[in-house]
């Protein structure tokens, strides 16, 4: 959104569905694309044919954790079967209000699911990157998974209350006491390991 | 509110039927279901009526009690509406469950009766800014099979028609203190003129058409409906759009026309029954719930 382009309000007709494809913040009706947000009109022309028309707002667009989205969340409680978390960000957007999510034991990592122990993977207070796998049903709430290399704990504190440094995909170390703690660590580039 | 769950296929089935002017129970879009009306079913009320419209079953009791007129209208009595969505209709209504719907219906009734022409309230005033009759119109919802509002309005009108308010005389003794005397003769009593009491006609938008007297299943298929109260003369006294959908202006105009048409015939049919029952008088064999 380099130059502050045209602004539009919900219900504003943008163009006909032939000349563009509807992007985010828009909807299609009777062959026309309408805006569904109050924001700035954006036309990004894809190399593959039709340009994408979308209406964008700055950071504070109202989005929800959606299936497949990568979310940043904070572990608030664990037990032997699952960890309960608060979802704080979807992608890079902070949520207005936290949503409760659950990481089940079998969703913690991809391999050897049966050997996974929740308390060896997360501790309350950890900041975790996870992926939404389901919206859940009447009983449960959002189901999350960390069964990927890039997903898992990114911030954790040791008993001493200091930031721990990841030393392997399943361990973090306290720089002060040098005690090691087990975590399901998200993969991080080596050049950041010493900080 | 009580609701049924329909699969997409079933909805489609209903919608297509409606397009063909054929509804699941074989009616056309402007047909009402068979309605049964019986008045004077509860003996210890001033007036009562029971209306059965398909599976919708309504019992209305009117009780006249002495009260003081409202400040702004010192020379008029007034009506009080109360709707009890009893657990009979559906377990969802148990306890306080039915209250939300109940108040909604009651509010609608207030709006329908808001125009002073609907009932002559002056006639039920005993003496200005001191005594008047308060008509408690209590609606009891026994079973709901869709189209509550219409059924209730019919029942209310029937009950009001059936209402008999004992005549009272105001005796004033020398030191100006008033005394009210109820006439003991049960037959000399005030009757209400219900000619201008409107009936509600609910038109539910299904697909591109609208139907009257929708069943629960049809209500599940309709996103928006227009609620119109029509007098016997075909005048509209109130309108309300209901439901989570929206309507395009043209269809609203059509609906109003349909509503007027249907409403008028509704009134005629209803009046016919009421007069019939009236003519039978006491000889009439009461059936009530035993029928």
């Amino acid at each position, binding site marked *: *959104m*380099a130059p*502050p382009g045209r602004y539009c309000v919900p219900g504003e007709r943008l163009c006909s569905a032939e000349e563009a494809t509807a992007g985010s913040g828009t909807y299609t009706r009777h062959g026309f694309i309408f805006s569904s947000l109050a924001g700035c009109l954006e036309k990004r022309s894809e190399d593959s044919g039709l340009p994408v028309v979308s209406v964008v707002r*700055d*950071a504070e667009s109202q989005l929800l954790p959606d299936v497949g989205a*990568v979310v*940043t969340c*904070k572990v608030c409680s664990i037990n032997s079967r699952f960890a309960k978390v*608060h979802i*704080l*960000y979807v*992608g*890079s*957007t*902070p*949520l*207005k*209000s*936290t949503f409760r999510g659950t990481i089940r034991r079998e969703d913690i990592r991809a391999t050897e699911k049966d050997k996974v122990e929740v308390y060896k993977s997360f501790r309350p207070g950890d*900041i975790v*990157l996870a992926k939404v796998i389901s919206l859940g049903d009447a009983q449960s709430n959002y189901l999350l998974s960390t069964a990927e290399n*890039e997903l898992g704990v*990114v*911030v*954790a504190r040791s008993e001493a209350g200091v*930031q*721990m*440094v*990841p030393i392997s995909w399943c361990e*973090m170390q306290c720089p002060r006491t040098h005690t090691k703690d087990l975590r399901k660590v*998200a993969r*991080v*580039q080596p050049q*950041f390991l010493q*900080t | 509110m009580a609701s049924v769950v329909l699969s997409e296929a079933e909805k489609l089935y209903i919608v297509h039927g409606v397009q063909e002017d054929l509804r699941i129970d074989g009616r056309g879009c402007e047909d009402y279901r068979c309605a049964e009306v019986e008045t004077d079913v509860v003996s210890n009320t001033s007036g009562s009526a029971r209306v059965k419209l398909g599976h919708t079953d309504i019992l209305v009791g009117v009780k006249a009690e002495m009260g003081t007129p409202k400040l702004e209208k010192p020379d008029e009595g007034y009506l009080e509406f109360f709707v009890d969505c009893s657990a009979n209709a559906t377990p969802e209504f148990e306890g306080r469950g039915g209250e939300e719907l109940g108040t909604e219906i009651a509010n609608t009734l207030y709006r329908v009766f808001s125009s002073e022409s609907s009932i002559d309230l002056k006639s039920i005033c005993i003496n200005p800014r001191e005594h008047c009759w308060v008509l408690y119109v209590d609606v009891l919802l026994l079973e709901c099979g869709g189209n509550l509002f219409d059924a209730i309005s019919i029942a209310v009108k029937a009950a009001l028609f059936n209402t008999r308010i004992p005549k009272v005389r105001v005796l004033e003794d020398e030191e100006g203190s008033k005394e009210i005397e109820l006439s003991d003769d049960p037959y000399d009593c005030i009757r209400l003129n219900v000619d201008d009491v409107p009936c509600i006609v609910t038109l539910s938008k299904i697909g591109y058409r609208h139907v009257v007297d929708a069943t629960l299943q049809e209500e599940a298929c309709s996103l928006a409906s227009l609620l119109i109260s029509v007098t016997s003369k075909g005048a509209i006294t109130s309108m309300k759009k209901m439901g989570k959908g929206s309507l395009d202006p043209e269809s609203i105009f059509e609906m109003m026309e349909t509503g007027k048409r249907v409403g008028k015939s509704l009134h005629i049919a209803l009046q016919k029954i009421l007069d019939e029952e009236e003519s039978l008088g006491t000889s009439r064999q009461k059936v009530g719930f035993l029928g």
Partner: protein
Amino acid sequence: MATAFKTVEPLEYYRRFLKENCRPDGRELGEFRATTVNIGKCLLGIIMGLESSLAEPDLGVLVDTKLNMSQQRTLVAKKANVILGCIRQSIASRLREVILPLCSALARPRLEYCVQLWGPQYERDMDILERVQQRAMNMMQGLEHLSYEERLQELGLLGLEKRSLRGHLINVYKYLEGGCEEDRARLYLVVPSSITTADGSALVKLGNTTVICGVKAELAAPAADSANKGYIVPNVELPSLCSTRFRSGPPGEEAQAASQFIADVIENSQIIAKEDLCIANGKLAWVLYCDIICLDYDGNILDASAFALLAALKNVQLPSVTINEETGLSEVNLKQKNPLIIRKHPVATSFAIFDDTLLIVDPTAEEEDLATGTVTIVTDDEGRLCSVHKPGGSPLTGAKLQDCITRAITRHKEVKKLIDKVIKSIKPK
């Protein structure tokens, strides 16, 4: 904002600022927020949006000149760095998904808060801040190869220039009026008010905190035990509209506490002598219903409420009532109205206590949440205490309290001045 904090220890994060003697929103510890009072008649909307109020003829703006801009600038930059520091230390991974949220959540707001304080003309200042933002971005992996602009694109962040428009307006005020004021409450707006269905009303804006007070006068028989007194019935409402922290429905604890506080202030300060409200002894008296509704809750509701109440009472116009001798009935002449007699001008000043030692005036909602305690002091014209309200929290030494009181008294002067100015400004009409 509160959620944004979750990633960094809030208090921890806050202390960093306090060490620097500055607050995340760019104020110093002893600094009040912009205060606005609104009495009289014109669009309420104006008060809520600054730009339109420029059009307002009777607009008094007083800008503090002490706080010079350069100093402010460095402050800002310092703050931003503090935050980035926080982030750097608190995060192991430099994953973009992690940094970006934190930066956008923590750093940017801080930067932008003070944008309005310098016009875009100061190229140099912009550089300072742009640099800060660059630093933030360098912390993110995978973007090293991009130029600054490209990264902005990439991250969907905005260059700062675009955001400083609002800065203009404030500058305009600055030029409009060079008037100087003792304290650091930067901006006083004085715009007339709104509610014609009430007998008197006022809207007070303290930073973001917005409170409206409407006074309705009715007639009733005095209470048996106090036959020569009228009633003043305060009622503070915190509707769900003003903040997510309140549910709809009957007043919650905070609302009840606030109502009680206001009631005490009225009682203790004798802002109005209840005897003045009595019309016919034992027969008829005025009831003043003072309904105070918070429209926007950003902390320090007590100060705002007390202020709003005072301002509203100031412009109450009561119709004259006469008791007809022969009939004994009272007759109200709505044409002829006369104002209330305001005996005292109580002004509330609230402080937030940090770590039992640091005192912060006029706390925001955030600050109130983090503070270890709060204290509210109400003084009247003669600098006498009307009420000291300290709901628990961390203890306070006598000396500190004394300090608070002296500050409260100085604050009172300014507020009084403001009120008089307001009243004067609407007198001609």
